[in-house]
């Protein structure tokens, strides 16, 4: 009946599956629904007999299975995301509860129906439920009860119960009990699971160390598996048969079994080799592996090669055959390389990660061992083992390049552990370089720390040690510019470079230090100062100059004073060479050197200013005044106000030197320039510049230039004396050059009693000395304008003298008697009239002889002497017409007496004049005019007949 119902249910299930195409979970729901529906129908039955209840037990068991299925599914899913092993039971709470319910339902059935036909089935169901879902361990009990109830040894239920009990004992490791039931079970040759039972019993025999039986049973299972009547468990058998031989201590027989029974035994040989190895059969294992390798080689079964390599690795590892292991690893490296390069071969690489792990593991192990040996054996170690370790790391680098940095580090550590420091250092360096590439800061730090501790021991040759230390320091600060250790490293690294004289590198350290730790500015400044000292010691001016530019642009925020000090030092260094040249006499080269410094773009304004100044000085020493001036101006342009001030004394001396070198034009330019530039200072130097400028202008007869200095820069003076001196010089200049117009202007522009007085005397001198009538007229006009009483007198005298000269000329040509007939009375009257005119002339102009105008006094005295001489000669030689001889004799005698008086007076005038002039040594122009022969002045003229002197015997 229930079978029909089940079929019915199955049909419904099938149709619903087809109709709805449900998912897996849906299947569970459907089955559960079906079970529930049938259960409901059965529960609704008014009378429930044992058969119906048994069906209900089956349905409960079915539901229990579904619930467990569901609980298990939940557990598995949770397991995927979390470790739920500890709470596993909580997932199966429903299973346990429903199991209990089902078990009670079955027990109640057994209790209510002790004679039920299906009692043995109920017992079997309870036993199986307990085995599968319960924790109450009642399986054995209920199975034994079931077996005891089924007397017929051929009854299938009994066979099932015995099989289940055998499996139960097998699982409970009660192998002897299991054997006793399996021996019964295997007698039922109709059981399609017979190979399985043989397989199980073989295991039981194995467990109880009955190896021959075990091998026999398993080999029988292999044979039965070939029979299609039975379930084929050949694979299981093949997987295990090798082990059976191994356990039996006859691994080579196992090998033979595989070779004999399987065309491709390799999949079984490798596990077998493993097992053989585990069981201590080293030689046999090697034989198995070698056989496998031969098969691969013979049949080109390269797909097994990778796995076989692994088997080898395991084998060698197991027997500590490290060299063989390493050799195999080397072959594997080649294999993987080939796999990578020759894709056509389709070499398997599934186990590559495992290979890496194995090599890694062994390398690690050996590394520790080598180090341990080193410690324990007082510093000795096996060189070969170390080489193996190092080779492993090389293999690993090849196989696992992503972790290259790690292996490089391990190489370093390996060397370090055996105190092979010379080899360790480059290994660490390799690691650091790789770490930088892969950005593995952790290993970079570790390697650098190792390198630092290594170098600290000072066990490597000194220079090499320094090289590594520099590397470690440089990389450390490079990777972690701001880091506790780097903070300590900067000064040390700097010191190394400094001591080695590597200034550029030392500078770079400071720059990096500054960037990373601006708060340590003072320390950095101190370090920088040391670098500068280095440059100074080495006279590396270009570098020094370059740094000054840096400082000026703000680097290390050095104070202005420090920068200036450095610049001065630089300048001194730069200039020293050329100053030496100059000292040695090669001034040309020195000057060119200073010019080259100025023209070099590298140097700062301060240096250039100084260079230009030195160039100027040197050109001056070369007497190249114009060039010196040019560089003086260039120097000035580059100098700061302070520097300009500091050079003033020298500038003044240079200006003075320039005129001493006969270049008055340049000296004037220089003096004017500085006079103007420092006008506001109004000090002694300014006074001197002023004096030099005026003086040099006048030497060049550049009156306008001198006037401009006076006009524009007299406000730049400290003392007025220079101004007064300049005005006097200007006056003298115009006076010397006879420049009436400018002299006049000067006197009007700078009126002073001294000038005015001197002016009128100069004009008076010019009036009498110069022949230009125009000038004479101008002087007279000027005299009028002066409105000075004394000058008015002079003017009158001048006019008077001019008039006197005219009268004198008339008198000289005037005839005393020119009548045709002599008349004594008339003659006397005429003579009287003439002499009265002479007297009148004397009265009118006699005062001129005592004029304060020396020239006039001399000229007028000479005029009177000339007049009297003329009168005397005229009277002396008179011979009136119509006078008889006798009368003439008497007349002449009388006239001679008169004439003699006039001639005597004339001569007296002359003598007195000569005497006066001689006594006073008067050098007036008038005196020259009267000293003549035949009215021609003396060709001797003091200026052009005088002699200059060049030397003296008296020296």
């Amino acid at each position, binding site marked *: 009946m229930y079978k029909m119902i089940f079929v019915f249910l199955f049909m419904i299930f099938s149709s619903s599956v087809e109709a709805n195409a449900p998912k897996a979970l849906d299947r569970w729901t459907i089955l559960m629904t079906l079970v529930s529906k049938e259960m409901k129908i059965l529960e609704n039955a008014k009378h429930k007999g044992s058969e119906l209840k048994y069906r209900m037990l089956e349905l409960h068991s079915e539901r229990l299975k579904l619930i467990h299925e569901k609980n298990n599914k939940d557990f598995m899913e949770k397991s995927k995301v979390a470790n739920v092993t500890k709470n596993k039971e909580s997932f199966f709470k429903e299973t346990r509860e429903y199991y209990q319910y089902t078990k009670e339902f079955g027990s109640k059935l057994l209790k209510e129906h002790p004679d039920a036909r299906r009692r043995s089935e109920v017992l079997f169901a309870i036993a199986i439920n307990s085995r599968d879902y319960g924790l109450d361990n009642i399986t054995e009990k209920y199975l034994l009860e079931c077996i005891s109830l089924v007397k017929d040894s051929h009854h299938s239920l009994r066979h099932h119960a015995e099989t289940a009990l055998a499996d139960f004992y097998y699982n409970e490791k009660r192998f002897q009990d299991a054997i006793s039931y399996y021996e019964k079970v295997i007698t039922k040759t109709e059981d399609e699971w017979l190979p399985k039972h043989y397989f199980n019993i073989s295991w039981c025999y194995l467990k109880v160390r009955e190896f021959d039986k075990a091998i026999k049973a398993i080999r029988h299972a292999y044979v039965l598996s070939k029979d299609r009547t039975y379930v084929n468990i050949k694979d299981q058998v093949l997987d295990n048969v090798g082990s059976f031989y191994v356990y039996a201590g006859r691994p080579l027989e196992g090998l033979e079994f595989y070779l004999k029974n399987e065309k491709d035994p390799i999949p079984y040989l490798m596990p077998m080799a493993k097992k053989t190895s585990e069981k201590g059969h080293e030689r046999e294992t090697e034989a198995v592996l070698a056989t496998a390798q031969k098969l691969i080689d013979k049949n080109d079964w390269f797909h097994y090669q990778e796995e076989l390599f692994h088997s080898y690795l395991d084998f060698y590892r197991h027997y500590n055959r490290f060299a063989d292991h390493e050799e195999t690893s080397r072959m594997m490296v080649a294999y993987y390389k080939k796999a990578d390069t020759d894709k056509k071969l389709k070499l398997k690489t599934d186990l590559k990660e495992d290979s890496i792990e194995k090599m890694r593991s062994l390398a690690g192990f050996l590394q520790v061992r080598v180090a341990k040996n080193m410690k324990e054996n007082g510093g000795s170690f096996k060189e070969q083992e170390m080489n193996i370790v190092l080779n492993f790391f090389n293999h690993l680098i090849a196989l696992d390049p992503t972790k290259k940095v790690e292996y490089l580090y391990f190489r370093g550590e390996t060397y370090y552990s055996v105190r092979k420091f010379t080899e360790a250092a480059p290994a660490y360096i390799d690691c650091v370089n790789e770490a930088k590439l892969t950005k593995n800061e952790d290993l970079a730090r570790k390697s650098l720390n190792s390198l630092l501790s290594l170098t600290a021991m000072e066990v490597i040759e000194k220079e090499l040690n320094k090289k590594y230390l520099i590397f470690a320091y440089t990389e450390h600060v490079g990777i972690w510019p701001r880091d506790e250790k780097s903070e300590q490293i900067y000064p040390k690294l700097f010191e190394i470079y400094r001591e080695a004289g590597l200034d550029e590198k030392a500078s770079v350290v400071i720059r990096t230090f500054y960037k990373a730790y601006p708060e340590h500015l003072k320390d950095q400044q101190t370090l920088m100062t040391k670098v500068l000292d280095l440059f100074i010691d080495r006279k590396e001016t270009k570098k020094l100059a370059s740094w000054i530019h840096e400082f000026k642009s703000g680097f290390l925020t050095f104070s202005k004073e420090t920068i200036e000090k450095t610049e001065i030092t630089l300048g001194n260094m730069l200039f020293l060479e050329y100053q030496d040249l100059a000292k040695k006499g090669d001034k040309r080269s020195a000057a060119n050197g200073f010019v080259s410094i100025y023209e070099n773009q590298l140097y700062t304004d301060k240096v250039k200013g100084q260079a230009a100044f030195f160039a100027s000085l040197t050109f001056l020493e070369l007497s190249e005044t114009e060039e010196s001036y040019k560089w003086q101006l260039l120097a000035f342009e580059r100098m700061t106000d302070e520097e300009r001030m500091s050079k003033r004394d020298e500038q003044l001396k240079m200006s003075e030197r320039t005129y001493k070198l006969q270049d008055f034009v340049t000296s004037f330019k220089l003096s004017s320039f500085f006079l103007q530039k420092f006008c506001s200072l109004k000090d002694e130097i300014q006074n001197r510049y002023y004096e030099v400028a005026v003086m040099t202008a006048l030497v060049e007869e550049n009156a306008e230039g001198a006037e401009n200095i006076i006009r524009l820069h007299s406000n730049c003076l400290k003392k007025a004396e220079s101004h007064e001196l300049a005005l006097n010089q200007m006056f003298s200049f115009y006076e010397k050059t006879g420049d009436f117009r400018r002299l006049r202007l000067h006197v009007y522009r700078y009126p002073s009693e001294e000038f005015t007085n001197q002016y009128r005397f100069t004009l008076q001198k010019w009036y009498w000395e110069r022949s230009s009538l125009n000038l004479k007229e101008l002087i007279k006009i000027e005299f009028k304008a002066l409105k000075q009483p004394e000058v008015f007198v002079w003017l009158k005298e001048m006019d008077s003298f001019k008039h006197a000269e005219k009268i004198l000329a008339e008198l000289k040509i005037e005839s005393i008697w020119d009548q045709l007939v002599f008349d004594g009375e008339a003659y006397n009257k005429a003579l009287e009239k003439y002499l009265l005119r002479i007297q009148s002339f004397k009265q009118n102009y006699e005062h001129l002889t005592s004029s304060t105008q020396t020239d006039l006094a001399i000229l007028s005295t000479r005029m009177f002497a000339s007049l009297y001489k003329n009168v005397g000669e005229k009277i002396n030689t008179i011979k009136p017409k119509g006078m008889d001889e006798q009368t003439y004799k008497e007349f002449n005698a009388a006239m001679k007496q008169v004439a003699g008086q006039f001639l005597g007076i004339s001569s007296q005038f002359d003598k007195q004049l000569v005497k006066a002039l001689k006594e006073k040594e008067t050098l007036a122009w008038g005196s020259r005019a009267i000293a003549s022969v035949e009215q021609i002045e003396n060709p001797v003229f003091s200026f052009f007949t005088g002699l200059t002197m060049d030397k003296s015997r008296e*020296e």
Partner: protein
Amino acid sequence: MKTFAMLAILLIFVSCSSSRIDRKIDNAAWDSLADESYLRWGENRLKKTAKSEYEVVACYSGDASKTLNSFKKDYLVKNQTPYYWLHIGNCYFIQENWTKAEFFYRMTLEETKVKTIKSIALNNLGLIHFKYEQWEKGKEFLNEAIKNAPLLKVPRYNISQLYLQFGLFDKAIEVLNDSVFKGHKDIDVNFSLANAYLYKGDLKTSAQYFQLIPQDNFRREDIAATYALFLMKHGKTKEAKEVMDDRERSGVAELSAISQKIEKLIAQRMKEE
């Protein structure tokens, strides 16, 4: 063509115009002032003089610019040497650059402590002041020069020229008869005395001094002019004309004017005669 002619005339004019008389004396025996002045040294004498004795000699040989440049170059080495500044002044004097000459003479006075060198500078400054027609100042410098080095002849000679210029003939004769000139033969000293006596009216003594002047020197314009006047005083108009005709023109404006006056006078006398 016209342009060339003008240029040639201009060149002649330029080359002829001068401030001073060229009166080189080739025979050292007639130069009693040779120890003090190179001014009258003839070309041959200058050539014979080792230039190393004094660099200034080159200036008298026509290399004034070059020599000045040499002084400039040797400044550092030579500026402390006794004659450095003085000789620079003299070179400028020769170039007729009076302001520069004066400047360096004044430099000499500032820089030297040697009395004779001071005296030389003072003498030269005196001449410069004569150029400026500052006779009194010039005389002061000369007197100062004599005071500093009484045995020097040139300052005395120069002051005699001033006296002659201003008609102080007795003073000139007195100076030129000073013991420093005794025992020496000198064309200019003799000429100055001849001149002084002529202008003083003592033709006889004048004639004695004229006779002491070597014949060649009568071509010098100042001597020729004076001697022509001397001849005129003796009524030797024709001889006076010959002397004047034979003179070498100095190019000195003042002297040329006097010569012209004399020639005019000669012409007038000859006409009268």
